[in-house]
């Protein structure tokens, strides 16, 4: 069960396999914070779960007691029926939402980050533009989910995903994209990108304009100081070679046949 501030209200993600357990967790979470959420609106995401009448009534109860108005529901056809009855907005559960497997992400990234912080203390590396040396092979997609996000990520927005992450639009400075697999930004990558976030050193970061504030692959970290100034107008890819993050123009990548 995840409760997130999203835009102007709360986004409550209920787990699909055990709805009752996550309702208990929700109630416990609100109990901890008395009426901190009073007065705000909530969107509840059921994913593929189908709540029974009793479970749905319990959800309404939990929200009403805390003074939170139900503003929207997301889920399958059954949830849509409920949304009509409650006359709140409805949206179909799309794969765009954080996949359930991603829920433990934050803890994992914290682990990676601490390691990186320690590494940074010992002198942080500057990214090198490799002109020579072999270019990496394009990786064949393993059986990993890819989160496809259409739209620019503004400052302060973060997108985490277990698997690969594709952003069609810019990642503005102050925004953060984190994935356990590769990251591809079809636009300007100016925020912080962290690929291979659970230790996959082979992960890559691709972008039409690769000018991140900071680039992290697995537990390697690099600040792209000259990137912004240089502003090369060609797509580039960043990868790890001999424990250092290197950036090469994309066209020099070898495409396996």
């Amino acid at each position, binding site marked *: 069960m995840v409760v997130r501030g999203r835009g102007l209200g709360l986004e409550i993600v209920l787990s699909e396999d055990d709805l009752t357990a996550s309702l208990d967790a929700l109630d416990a979470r609100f109990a901890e914070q008395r009426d901190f959420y009073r007065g705000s609106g909530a969107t509840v995401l059921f994913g593929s779960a189908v709540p029974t009448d009793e479970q749905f009534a319990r959800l309404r109860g939990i929200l009403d007691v805390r003074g939170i108005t139900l503003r929207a529901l997301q889920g399958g056809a059954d949830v849509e029926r409920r949304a009509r009855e409650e006359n709140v907005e409805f949206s179909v559960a799309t794969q765009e939402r954080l996949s359930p497997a991603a829920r433990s992400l934050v803890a994992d990234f914290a682990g990676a*980050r*601490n390691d990186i912080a320690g590494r940074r203390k010992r002198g942080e590396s500057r990214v090198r533009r490799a002109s020579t040396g072999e270019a990496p092979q394009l990786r064949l997609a393993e059986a990993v989910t890819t989160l496809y996000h259409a739209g620019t990520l503004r*400052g302060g927005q973060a997108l985490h995903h277990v698997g690969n992450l594709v952003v069609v639009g810019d990642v503005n*400075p102050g925004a953060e994209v984190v994935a356990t697999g590769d990251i591809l930004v079809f636009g300007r990558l100016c925020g912080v990108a962290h690929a291979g976030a659970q230790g996959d050193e082979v992960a890559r970061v691709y972008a039409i304009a690769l000018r991140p*504030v900071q680039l992290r692959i697995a537990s390697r970290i690099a600040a792209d100081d000259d990137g912004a100034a240089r502003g090369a107008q060609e797509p580039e890819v960043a990868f790890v070679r001999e424990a250092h993050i290197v950036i090469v123009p994309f066209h020099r990548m070898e495409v396996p046949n």
Partner: protein
Amino acid sequence: MNLGAALATAGKRVILVDADIGLRNLDLVLGLEKRIVVDLVEVAEGRCQLRQALIRDKRFPALSLLPASQTRDKDAVTQEQFAAIVDQAAEAADYVLVDSPAGIEGGFRNAIAGATEAIVVTTPEVSAIRDADRVVGKLSDRALPIRLIVNRLRPEMVHTGDMLSVEDVCEVLGVELLGVIPDDEEIIDTTNRGEPLVLDDSKRLAAIFHKIVRRLEGEIVPFTRFGNGYRHGLLGRLFAGLTTG
């Protein structure tokens, strides 16, 4: 940040704390944005140590920054957690400067939680002075000693009677003056480049920040008197009357 840098050049160990969670800018104007890995929220949540999150500034060995988080918001840290972090920082530094967010809501309350003194910064404009007065009221509820910095003063407008003078502002707010900073393009230039002014002592405003530092250290330092030299137009030189600054 210029004050922090000036303190550091005076040999003081300084930790700058950015309390503006969600609207992080201190790292930007210091040019340290690229080196942030972990931030204040992660220290508060105990997921990393304070010293891991501190970023040293190569140009000022005695200066380091505890950055705010950009992707979280103000309710991510409680007042107690914030005060604890400031206390912990105070053990490792002579000065801990906490940059408070705008407004008087939770973020402001967090920022002043660990403080023993307060500096209120205002411009000589009507709405800024009124906001400053409200903040002074809130601070005096907590018996914090308060001092005032008047920023973006335009001496030529004070001279033509279109802008409140520093005396006016001090009189209306009833707070002791700590420093006066004229409206100068140097500030815009250096913040855009992420370089504290005191890096280059030829800058007009560097001297002003050094003076503020000396006053912070308890010295009585006379305030700069801004002639109309700041007014580049000919008009200024014609009426080179002195306005107290």
